[in-house]
C-alpha cells in the first residue's frame, strides 16, 4: 500500500489495516512525518514535531500488536495534539512567547489517555495565543494556512489541528473549544470537530483560557473517527472537579447507526436566530440543502427560537476574558517560562521583572482580553458586567431547554462565513469575534456540538460547516445525526469533500 493511500484513509480504516496486519504503526507514523516534512512549510500546522518520540511509540505499538495485545482499537494510529495541552517532555507553548521553551513535567489527562491507548503523538499544533482568536493569526509563532487556500485562515484557535487533519498530515488531532475553537476551524477546513458536553472530557492539563467554557475534543476527517477518539479521551477524571462522574454514552455505536442514513423519528430543530442576515449566501444555501437531505431521509424538522442567543456574544466576551485575566496572572517570570529583565533599571524588583516579562511575552489580543477581564471584574463593575453576563448565561441555558423540548438536536451553520483571508480581520477584533456567533451558545450552556462539512460555498469554493447541537450528556445524538448527514452528503458528492481539496505536494510559500 502506498504512503499516499495510507494518508488519505480514515482513522477507523487505519485501525482495521493495523488489526489485519496490512500496515504497521511505524509505517503509518513515518508516512505522517514525511507528509509533515513535505507540506508543513506551506501549512504551518505544527509548532513542534516529535519524530523520534512518535516513531518510538509506534514501534512499541507494533510490538503490542505482534504480542496480540493492542491497547485499544486506535492503538498505533498517530495523532497531533494542540499546543494548549500539557505533554510531559514535549514543549507546550500555547502559541505564546511567554511559555517559549517550557516543557511540562506532567501529561494532561487526555494526553495520558492517548498514550495509554497507544496513539503515537506526532507533535504539537499551532493555535492562537492561549486559544484567543478565530484565525490562528494570533499565534506568536506565525499563522497557520488553510490547506484549501494558503492565503486564507484555517479558523481558530485550533487552526493547527484542523489544518493538520485537512492536509493529511495526521489522521487525528485533539483540539479545545471555548467558544468554537474546534468547530469553526472544522467548518472552514472541511473537517469534523466535536465539542463534548462540558465535563465530559477532563480539562486537567489543558492550559485554561476560560475554565467554565473550555472543553477538549476530537478533530478528524470523519464523524466515526471523532466518536472513536472521543471514547479514548472521554470519561470521568478525579483530577478535574468539573468532570462528570458517569459512563460515556456509546458514541461509536451511535455513529455506526447513523451511517445508515436513516433519520426517521428524529426531530431536528433549526435555530431561527442562527442564520439569515449576517450569514454568507453560500453558507446559508449549503446549510438549507443539508437540512432538506435530512428531511428526505425521514427527519422531522421544526423551527425553534432561542431569543437570548442574540446576547451570547456579549456575555461571552465578559465571562471569557474575566476568567482568562485571572488564569493568565500566573505567567509572571517567577517560576517558569519567559523572564525579561527590564532594560535601564538598576536592580529590578520582582514586580518590575513581572511587568517587563508580561509586556514582552503576551501578544496584543491576549493583553486586550486581560484588560477587558480585569475591568469586568473590578469592584463597582462586577455586577453590571460579570454578574449580568452570568444571568444571560442562565437565559441561554433556558432557551436550549425549551428548544430541546421540541427537538432531539438543533442545527445551524457552524460559522457565518467561509474562511476569510489572512490579515483581513486583524484590525477589527469585533468582526473577528462575530465568526464565533453560532458556536458560542453551546459553550455558555455546556451542551455538546459537532461540525461537519456541508459542501463548498458556490461563490468562493470554500468549505461550509454544518453544526449539530445536543442536550448535555446526549453526545451520542451528535454522532447519530452527524454520521447520517455525512453519508447522505458523500453519496451526493461521490466521496469525501476533502478529495476536492488542492494537493499540497510541492506547495511553497
Amino acid at each position, binding site marked *: 500500500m502506498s504512503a499516499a493511500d495510507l494518508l488519505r484513509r480514515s482513522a477507523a480504516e487505519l485501525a482495521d489495516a493495523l488489526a489485519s496486519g496490512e500496515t504497521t504503526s511505524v509505517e503509518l507514523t513515518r508516512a505522517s512525518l514525511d507528509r509533515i516534512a513535505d507540506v508543513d512549510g506551506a501549512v504551518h500546522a505544527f509548532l513542534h514535531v516529535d519524530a523520534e518520540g512518535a516513531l518510538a511509540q509506534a514501534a512499541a505499538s507494533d510490538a503490542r500488536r505482534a504480542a496480540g495485545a493492542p491497547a485499544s482499537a486506535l492503538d498505533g494510529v498517530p495523532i497531533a495534539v494542540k499546543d494548549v*495541552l*500539557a505533554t510531559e517532555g514535549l514543549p*507546550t507553548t*500555547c502559541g505564546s512567547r511567554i*511559555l517559549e521553551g*517550557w516543557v*511540562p*513535567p*506532567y501529561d*494532561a489527562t487526555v494526553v495520558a489517555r492517548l498514550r495509554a491507548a497507544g496513539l503515537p503523538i506526532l507533535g504539537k499544533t499551532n493555535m492562537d495565543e492561549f486559544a484567543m482568536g478565530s484565525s490562528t493569526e494570533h499565534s506568536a509563532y506565525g499563522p497557520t494556512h488553510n490547506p484549501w487556500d494558503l492565503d486564507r485562515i484555517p479558523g481558530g484557535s485550533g487552526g493547527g489541528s484542523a489544518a493538520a487533519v485537512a492536509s493529511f498530515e495526521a489522521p487525528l488531532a485533539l483540539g479545545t473549544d471555548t467558544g468554537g475553537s474546534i468547530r469553526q476551524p472544522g467548518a472552514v477546513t472541511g473537517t469534523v470537530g466535536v465539542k463534548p458536553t462540558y465535563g465530559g472530557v477532563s*480539562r*486537567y*492539563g*489543558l*492550559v*485554561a483560557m*476560560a*475554565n*467554565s467554557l473550555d472543553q477538549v475534543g476530537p478533530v478528524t476527517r470523519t464523524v466515526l473517527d471523532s466518536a472513536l477518539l472521543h471514547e479514548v479521551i472521554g470519561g470521568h477524571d*478525579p*483530577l*478535574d*472537579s*468539573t468532570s462528570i462522574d458517569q459512563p460515556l454514552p456509546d458514541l461509536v455505536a451511535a455513529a455506526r447507526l447513523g451511517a445508515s442514513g436513516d433519520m426517521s423519528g428524529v426531530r431536528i430543530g433549526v435555530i431561527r436566530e442562527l442564520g439569515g442576515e449576517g450569514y454568507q449566501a453560500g453558507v446559508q444555501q449549503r446549510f438549507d440543502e443539508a437540512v432538506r437531505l435530512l428531511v428526505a431521509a425521514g427527519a422531522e424538522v421544526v423551527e425553534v427560537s432561542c431569543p437570548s442567543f442574540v446576547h451570547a456574544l456579549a456575555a461571552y466576551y465578559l465571562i471569557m476574558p*474575566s*476568567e482568562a*485575566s*485571572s488564569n493568565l*496572572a*500566573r*505567567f*509572571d517570570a*517567577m*517560576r*517558569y517560562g519567559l523572564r525579561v529583565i527590564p532594560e535601564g533599571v538598576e536592580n529590578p524588583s*520582582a*514586580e518590575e521583572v*513581572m511587568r517587563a516579562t508580561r509586556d514582552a511575552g503576551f501578544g496584543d489580543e491576549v493583553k486586550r482580553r486581560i484588560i477587558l477581564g*480585569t475591568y469586568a*471584574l*473590578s*469592584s463597582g463593575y*462586577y455586577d453590571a458586567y*460579570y454578574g449580568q453576563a452570568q444571568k444571560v448565561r442562565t437565559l441561554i441555558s433556558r432557551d436550549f431547554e425549551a428548544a430541546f423540548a421540541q427537538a432531539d438536536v438543533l442545527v445551524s451553520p457552524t460559522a457565518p462565513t467561509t474562511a476569510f483571508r489572512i490579515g483581513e480581520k486583524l484590525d477589527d477584533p469585533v468582526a473577528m469575534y462575530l465568526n464565533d456567533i453560532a458556536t458560542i451558545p453551546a459553550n455558555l450552556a455546556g451542551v455538546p456540538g459537532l461540525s461537519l462539512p456541508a459542501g463548498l460555498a458556490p461563490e468562493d469554493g470554500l468549505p461550509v460547516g454544518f453544526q449539530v447541537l445536543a442536550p448535555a450528556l446526549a453526545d451520542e445524538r451528535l454522532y447519530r445525526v452527524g454520521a447520517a448527514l455525512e453519508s447522505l452528503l458523500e453519496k451526493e458528492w461521490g466521496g469525501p469533500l476533502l478529495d476536492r481539496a488542492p494537493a499540497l505536494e510541492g506547495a511553497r510559500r
Partner: protein
Amino acid sequence: MSTQTADTLLSFEEALERFDPAMGLEVHVELNTVTKMFCGCSTEFGAEPNTQTCPTCLGLPGSLPVVNGKAVESAIRIGLALNCEIAEWCRFARKNYFYPDMPKNFQTSQYDEPIAFDGWTEVTLLDGEGAGETFRVEIERAHMEEDTGKSLHVGTSGRIHGADYSLVDYNRAGIPLIEIVTRPITGAREKAPAVARAYVAHLRDLLLGLGVSDVRMEQGSLRCDVNLSLAPRVSAGSTTDVPLGTRTETKNVNSLRSVERAARYEISRQAAILVEGGSVLQETRHWHEDTGITTSGREKSDAEDYRYFPEPDLVPVAPSRAWVEELRATLPEPPREHRARLQALWGFADLEMRDVVAAGAIPVIEATVAAGTTPQAARKWWLSDLARRANEQGVDLSDLPITPEQVARVQALVDEGALNDKLARQVIDGVVAGEGDPDAVVAARGLAIVSDEGALGDAVDRAIEANPDVAAKIRDGKVAAAGALIGVVMKDMRGQADAGRVRELIIEKLS
C-alpha cells in the same frame, strides 16, 4: 530594622478616657490535614524547601484543584463549635493579586459565600482587672482558603525592601486554612486588649479540643490579625450610635501576649494622632515582637481590588444537613463546660482553677494527668517553674521544649524516691535545655538521690558532731530542731538525698 521609630503615644489610660476602641479579629488557622487543600501533597511542617509540591500547588499551567474533603469537614466542625450556621451551598472564589509567593497570583478562598457564618462564642477574662468576666464575641464568618508560599528575604534587613535576593518555599502553598472573622467587638473599653488575648486563647483551646489544628502560634499554624479603630467616647447612657473610626490592620501577631500588647499599642498610637486633630491612615501595620511597636506596611488595604469571582475549576460545596448533624455529634464539650468538669474531676479550688485557666495550662495538665501524674502534682509543675519560664520567654506553655509526658516522668521519678523536688527541678532544667529525656538528664547530670545508707549515715554523723547544741535539743525531745540538721546533711550531700530518710536517720541516731 534601622528605620523603625516609635510613634508618639498617648498613655493607655488617657486614650481610654477619650476614645472607645472597636476591634475585629481575624484568625488564620492551618488545619492538620495530612494533605493540602487542593492537591495530594503532604502538609508536614519543616521539610526541605520545595519538596512537598506538585503541578497543582505550584500553579503550573493546566493544573486543576480538587477540594480536600477532610478540610471541609474540619471547617464545618469549627463552624459548629462557634455556633455558626453552616451554608447549604457555597463556593470558592478567586482573590486576585500578584505576589511571588502565590503560585497562581490568585488565592483560592471564599468570598461572599463562606462555609460558616453568623456565630458567636463566649470568652472569659483570665487575669488582671475583670478576671472571670465573660464577653460574647460575635463571629461573622469562618471560611476555607489555601495558604501561600513562604518568602525568605535574604539580606541585612530581613524584609523585602533592601533584600539582596528572595527565596520562596512553596511547601506551605496550598495548606488548608480556615479564616475566622469576628464582628467588631465594642464596649470592652480598657479590657479590649485583654478580651483580644482571651479570645485567641479561647479559640486555641477550642481548636485543640476539636483536634483540627496543631495551633502552634510560633510555627504559624495559628496567626492573628488585629483590626482596631477608635471612636470618640460615648457618654454613659447615650443612645446615639457613633460610627466606627478608621481602622488599621496589624498583621501576623504571633503570640497571645503580642495580641494584647499590639492592641494596647494601637490604642495609644491612634489616640495620640486623633487628639492632635490628625486622622488615622487606613493601612496594614506590622507588629514587632522585639520592640513592642507596630510600623506601617501596605497603605490602603481596602482600596486594593481583589476582583473576586467564583472559582470556575471547583464545583460548589453543598454539605447535606444529615452530614452536618453527624459532625455536630462529634463535637467535644465546649471549653466552659470542659473547664467545669475538669475542675470537679481534679478537685481544684476555684482560685487554683482560675490560675490554671489564666496560664492556659488546661491542655498540658490534662495531658500530664493522662500520662499518670496526680492533678495536684501536674498543676504544681506547670504553674510554678514552667509558667515562669514561659512568661519570661513570652511563649505559651505548650510551646516550651518539654512535653507533658516528660513532666509526668519527672514526677514519677519523684514518686519512686529517685528524685526530690530540688533535683526534679534540675532535671526539668536539663530537659528544657535540650539535654534529652528526664532519664537521660538524670544519668548525664548524675542527679539521682543517694540511697547508699552508709554514705548517708556518715553524713548524719558528721552533722551531729559539728552541731552538738542542736543534737542535744533533739535528744531532749525537741524533734522540731531536726530541720536544722537535715539542712546541713542535704548541703553536705549536695541535695542528692531523700530528706525524709535523713530525718528518720537523725531521729534514730539521737533517740
